[in-house]
């Protein structure tokens, strides 16, 4: 197997008395679509946030593309700019139009000239099917549209990996499909993705590997079909019996 794009080793993270992660190791190859599932509070979101270092691990290391980003002196801003993240609650910037939301980071963090940044933003909005809503304020977009703008915003930085943190959980059911459709396209384009989700159908269809987490540890790993259809661990079975 080739060198993994992302290598997480022994990562632990505590919040006061709560041990959110208790020594998690995970490798994700380039082009892989890794799905993280598990009960609420199991640490899957924290693990995702440790990848782009929104959470700094108390122990362990994170390597991306051979560079240890948890090392002292690592350029976190550069690292984050290459790691796209989409949040459950969109977090679009409400004082900017859709286009400005997408163009901001290319212009400010990457230093592209204004015109070029907007051009790229337009292309990204087109990619998520929202070219016609470029001038709209976030508050005037549906939840599904907002989340697609958020995906376009992350893609505009040309990330090596995309992190999705329960991106459909805050959406009305009829809006979920349009976001999943965009993610499917993205997966088909070869993007490396780590997806925290409860959408098991989507996970089975798009995921190449699946990890089941519980109580701050990875309990079981395998292909989605293996984990979902033939779980080896009791805890996995118990969880799946509740969600499927």
């Amino acid at each position, binding site marked *: 197997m080739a060198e993994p794009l992302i290598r997480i080793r022994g990562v632990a993270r505590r919040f006061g008395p709560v041990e959110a992660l208790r020594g998690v190791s995970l490798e994700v190859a380039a082009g892989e679509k890794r799905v993280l599932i598990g009960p609420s509070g199991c640490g899957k979101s924290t693990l995702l946030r440790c990848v782009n270092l929104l959470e700094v691990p108390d122990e362990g290391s994170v390597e991306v593309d051979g560079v240890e980003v948890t090392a002292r002196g690592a350029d976190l*801003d550069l690292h984050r700019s290459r790691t796209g993240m989409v949040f459950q609650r*969109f977090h679009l*910037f409400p004082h900017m139009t859709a286009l400005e939301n997408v163009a*901001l980071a290319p212009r400010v*963090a990457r230093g592209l000239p204004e015109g070029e940044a907007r051009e790229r933003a337009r292309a990204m909005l087109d990619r998520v099917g929202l070219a016609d809503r470029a001038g709209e304020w976030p508050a*005037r977009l549906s*939840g599904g549209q907002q989340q697609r703008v958020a995906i376009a915003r*992350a893609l505009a930085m040309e990330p090596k990996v995309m992190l999705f943190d329960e991106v459909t959980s805050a*959406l009305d059911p009829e809006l979920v499909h349009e976001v999943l459709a965009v993610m499917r396209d993205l997966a088909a384009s070869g993007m490396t993705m780590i997806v925290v989700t409860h959408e098991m159908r989507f996970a089975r269809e798009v995921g190449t590997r699946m990890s089941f987490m519980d109580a701050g540890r990875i309990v079981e790993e395998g292909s989605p079909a293996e984990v979902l259809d033939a779980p080896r661990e009791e805890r996995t079975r118990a969880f799946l019996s509740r969600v499927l």
Partner: protein
Amino acid sequence: MAPLPSSRARIPPSPLLGALLLVAAGCGGDAGRAPHRIRVGTEAAYPPFEMKDAEGGITGFDVELVRAVALEAGLTAEFVDQPFDGLIPGLQQGKYDAAVSAMTITAERAQVVDFTDGYYDAGQVIAVREGETGIRGLEDLRGRTIAVQGNTTGHRAAERVEGATVKSFESIDPAFLELQAGRADAVINDDPTTFLYAKEHRGIRIVGKPFTEEQYGIAVRKGNGDLLRRLNEGLRRVRSSGAWDRLRARWIEGREAAPRKAWGYLLPGIGYTLLLWAGSLAVALVAGLFVALGRRSPRAWLRLPASAYVEVVRGVPLLVLIIWIYFGVVSEALRGIGITLDWFPASVLAFGICYSAFIGETYRAGIQAVDPGQEEAARALGLTHRQALRWVVLPQAVRNVLPALGNEAISLLKDTSLAMVIAVPELMHRGKDMAGEGFRTMEVYSVVAALYLAMTLGLTRVQRFLERRTGGGAAHPDPRRR
């Protein structure tokens, strides 16, 4: 009608403001030899001794006398308006070379400044309402209520009356109004001014003869012997030449009425008020940002001083802040390096500091109200903390706080009137000048209030415009789910 003179037999400031002024002033320096041109401080609101003419120029008996004296002494005099309580501190600080303001020569004052020979004999008199028969002299005032101008010799005399309640006002005019309103039984004040007031207003009369003998003198800094000699020499010549008698005939016996100022006199005050407001607001808006960021800093060496700054500044009365800066440490320090702190930087600094504490807290609340997910999203895109602040957090914080900032701005506009304690000729000060012309108090202050109201209404419009502009299409700052 004329403003009312009270003998400024004023005593060194002792109550509140006065005491503060003295403390803040510290000890004065020595200006060395008298310059060819001298600056003279006076409170131009005490006719017929000193007042403003219709154009706002300073005039009156004292003023014309000092001009004549200076001329005899080979000097030219220019006058600086300064509230009475601040006159001696200002003199000690070198803001001017001499002070003339119907100031009685007292032993207390002579400890901190030097006086020329007396140039006018005055005494304290008692004024009562027409029809008051129970008061014939000082002893009848026991247990009664006496209205005075603060820190005058009249004030001191009233304090010595056993069992009397003393109400001290910032100028003499309201003291007379208090008497007329029946809330005071008597006014104790200098003879010439009281005489003038009683002459011009019905219902007030003077009881008996002056019960003190006082002399007004011109004050100079301790140790400025050259100027003192030249002024005394000039005074002798003015006395012997007959000029003094002519001035007295004109200003005191002739009672040259204080010219009534036209309403237009208030207008330049609006300019000063707006200038003070704009300068102070700019300082406060910028400094407030640093205060807010300091308070939110994870670094203790930034956070703790910022918190202490807010706590201290919020707790100190604005008036004290102004006096500290204009007369106290800041002014002293600057004087040490040869800079005289002018009224504008001093007031802008005082207002700016005071409001930066409040506005800083307002900003902080505005920043805290921004969903932390906003900064996270920005950081996740690779923006640095500073970039996230600049492009994502602060623009939303500003929009959050615009209504509160509007409040602060309006409040500041009105608070600029406090600059009148350091004689800034802003709107309130000019109102006070006009109100000093007798019974126009209500009328004048109502017009002043209307002008402030007009300005604040204008500000409200600007604020609404800004809110609309920054609001954009985003009705909800945090469009979470829908």
